[in-house]
């Protein structure tokens, strides 16, 4: 840890922020020193992003003070905050697809001449310089829509380096980065820290928090729960601060004896997306798919769900070869898919919780020509209790729930279909540790009840924790399949980087 000056880079005192009907922040204090990485933790909806938006001038606090290098300041708007040296890297990608990388990096403050013309040469030169610092192998003129999600995330991060920042906030920056890019990001963060910048780092991933941060603060239900020096605390203590109890980390010992093969895939290909993929899933078994973003796992799931037409290969359900023509067909054959993006693919945000949950089977819940209200509510109640969904009532629009509860609605929706094969794609992306534990437990329980489950995840601890077998993918191909007990972190990392066991040294 580096030594710091006495006055902290940033102090927030008694910040209160209310939204109609919600007290999102309730007198929060936070102190960030110059040259430290300060982690901010809390459950979904605890108010982390809101606090940072207040800091960055996107929200005006109802009460409280912001003190920057000892002076009290007011952030009128994001530009103002940036001008004063506070930069926020957003949780959600916040880019304009049609524009170039450079224009995105300098969005809102394009260098220009007196007449309002963009000064392209300055813009490109400056951007290229930043991109070089970030080890990015694309240039300032590239159109953002031509970049992968991970590279787009790097563009987002590049924005932090456009000004001489005093405080940089990273709000869940790693949610869609590959490991290689994570390494670069962490180097950038360490570099900023060395230059005396105060850094706020928000993440739900404990491993990152503990390897990166100097101190950490915890929020719970919009109020401040305290600050710890990272080196002097542990995961369990932090978790208790966040959710008020410890998590039981029982490794999946209660594996049942796998049953018959429910799903078998032979030589499945879909154009350039994935090639010659073969595997099988038995009843009562959880198969994890691990790989980097872009490895093609989601596409396999989508193909199994009838959303893509395979160019070669066969799919067998209960030993019988099938052609799956579309989601409806897949559903009727007992396949359920909890999709990767709950907002875009999983939920109709404006609809009520109940209506979302019963959507796939609405055609069967009828009495005469009408939808049966009672049957629908019964289903909702059953899965609300089973998954502990927190919502004021079934009438609540799903868009108003916190991320974790939204995810549970999607899972409930597919469990209610009583599938033979359940596929879950990134089930815990952006979800806090508490809810994550719940979902992991749930997946295990489902398997023990005889479901065949496929879990796609980009988080190694998750895959290791929840799966019976792990299939590692690299760039559209299955590299290796690990049986129970075979899998180690090292071999997994090798596999997803494309190193085959037979060729490995």
């Amino acid at each position, binding site marked *: 840890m580096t030594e710091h000056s006495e006055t902290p880079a940033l102090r927030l005192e008694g910040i209160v922020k209310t939204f109609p009907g919600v007290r999102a922040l309730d007198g929060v204090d936070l102190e960030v020193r110059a040259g430290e990485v300060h982690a901010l933790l809390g459950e979904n909806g605890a108010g982390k992003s809101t606090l940072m938006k207040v800091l960055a001038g996107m929200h005006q606090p109802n009460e409280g003070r912001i003190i920057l290098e000892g002076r009290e300041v007011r952030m009128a708007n994001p530009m103002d905050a940036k001008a004063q040296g506070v930069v926020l890297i957003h949780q959600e990608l916040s880019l304009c697809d049609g524009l170039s990388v450079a224009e995105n990096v300098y969005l809102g403050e394009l260098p220009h001449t007196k007449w309002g013309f963009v000064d392209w040469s300055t813009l490109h030169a400056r951007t290229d310089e930043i991109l070089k610092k970030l080890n990015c192998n694309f240039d300032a003129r590239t159109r953002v829509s031509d970049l992968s999600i991970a590279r787009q995330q790097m563009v987002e991060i590049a924005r932090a380096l456009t000004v001489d920042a005093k405080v940089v906030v990273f709000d869940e920056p790693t949610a869609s980065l590959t490991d290689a890019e994570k390494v670069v990001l962490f180097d950038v963060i360490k570099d900023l820290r060395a230059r005396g910048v105060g850094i706020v780092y928000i993440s739900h991933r404990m491993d990152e928090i503990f390897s990166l941060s100097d101190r950490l603060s915890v929020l719970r239900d919009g109020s401040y729960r305290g600050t710890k020096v990272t080196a002097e605390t542990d995961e369990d203590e932090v978790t208790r601060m966040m959710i008020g109890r410890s998590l039981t980390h029982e490794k999946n010992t209660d594996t049942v004896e796998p049953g018959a093969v429910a799903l078998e895939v032979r030589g499945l290909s879909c154009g350039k997306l994935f090639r010659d993929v073969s595997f099988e899933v038995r009843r009562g078994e959880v198969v994890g798919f691990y790989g980097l973003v872009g490895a093609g796992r989601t596409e396999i799931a989508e193909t199994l769900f009838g959303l893509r037409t395979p160019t070669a290969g066969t799919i067998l359900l209960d030993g019988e070869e099938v052609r799956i023509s579309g989601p409806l067909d*897949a559903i009727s054959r007992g396949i359920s898919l909890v999709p990767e993006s709950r907002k875009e693919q999983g*939920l109709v*945000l404006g609809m009520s919780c109940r209506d979302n949950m019963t*959507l796939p089977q609405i055609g069967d819940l009828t009495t005469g*020509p009408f*939808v049966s209200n009672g049957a629908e509510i019964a289903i909702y109640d059953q899965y609300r209790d089973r998954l502990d969904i927190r919502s004021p009532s079934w009438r609540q629009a799903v868009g108003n729930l916190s991320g974790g509860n939204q995810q549970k609605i999607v899972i409930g929706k597919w469990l209610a279909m009583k599938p033979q094969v359940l596929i879950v794609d990134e089930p815990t992306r952006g979800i806090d540790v508490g809810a994550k534990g719940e979902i992991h437990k749930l997946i295990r329980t489902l398997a023990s009840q005889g479901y065949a489950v496929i879990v796609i995840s980009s988080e190694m601890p998750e895959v290791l924790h929840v799966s019976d077998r792990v299939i590692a993918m690299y760039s559209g191909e299955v590299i290796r399949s690990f049986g129970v007990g075979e899998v180690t972190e090292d071999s997994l990392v090798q596999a997803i980087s494309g190193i085959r066991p037979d060729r490995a040294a």
Partner: protein
Amino acid sequence: MASARLKGIGSLLARQGILIAFALFLLGFAAFSDSFSDADNLMQVVRQSAIIGVIAIGVTVVVISGNLDLSVGSMLSFATVMVVDLHDKIGPVPAIAVMLVAVLVLGCINGFLVGVLKLNSLIVTLGMLSAIQGLTLIYSGGQNVDIADQEATWFSLIGRGSFLGIALPIWIFGTLAIFMHVVMSTTAFGRRVYAVGGNPTASVFSGIRRTHVVFAAYMISALCVGIAALILGSRVGGSQNNVGQGYELQVLAGVILGGTSLLGGSGTILKTVIGVLILGFIQNGLLLLGFAYYVQWLVTWVVIILAVWLDIAAKRGRLLSPIA
């Protein structure tokens, strides 16, 4: 406790803003024009609104599904010219049957282009607006069509007759509105339309055949146009090639006034009915007050914006938008 109840009433009012605006309108006109509040006049406005209203019911379904249908105006011209022209040639029942089939074919084309090919609905139906107008002219050779002996055919009753003292167009409009309202709010099909409009991708991921739903919405819209054409053709006893010109915008205005969002996924049929009636009452009221017809356009301008503004202001809980 009392304040909670007040709040409850307040939020109820906010949600029913359009109903209140409607009531205020009626009171306002009634205060200034004697003949306005005449029961006969009120009935008459409802009857006059029936044609637009029937079309608006279909368009509401399309809009809830997240699309637009601007072709209804020319489709109305087409259907009316066809049913009136065929009436004397092959008799009323075959004429109606042929017309409905023809209109459904047009609905199929819209549904195919928007639902299956997933082309932009605004542009597709704009193109259809032009093409159907041309088809109508080609069909009729540009001539007006008339029913020769209007007294002798029961066809005339559809637009002119009455049952239990209420005009048949009102019966048709009312029955259709209630029927479609029930369909949209209580059946699986209705739920799917809302889902597709609310989030097309998520509905596909939920096993809804989005193409079928959009296709069906356009078929419903076309069928409603066919029914409106029956009322129009019967009421006039003839048709011109451009009778429906401009109806698409009036219909859309009614749908919007009813609070249906053009983004899809929300809205109800009954509110569309109210939206259409408001437009009808504005036209009628201003006419009775003796204003020039163009004043009606000015008033419609203000009313549309105010109504939609208040609607969304109530939803977001503040008057001005949060856009910086």
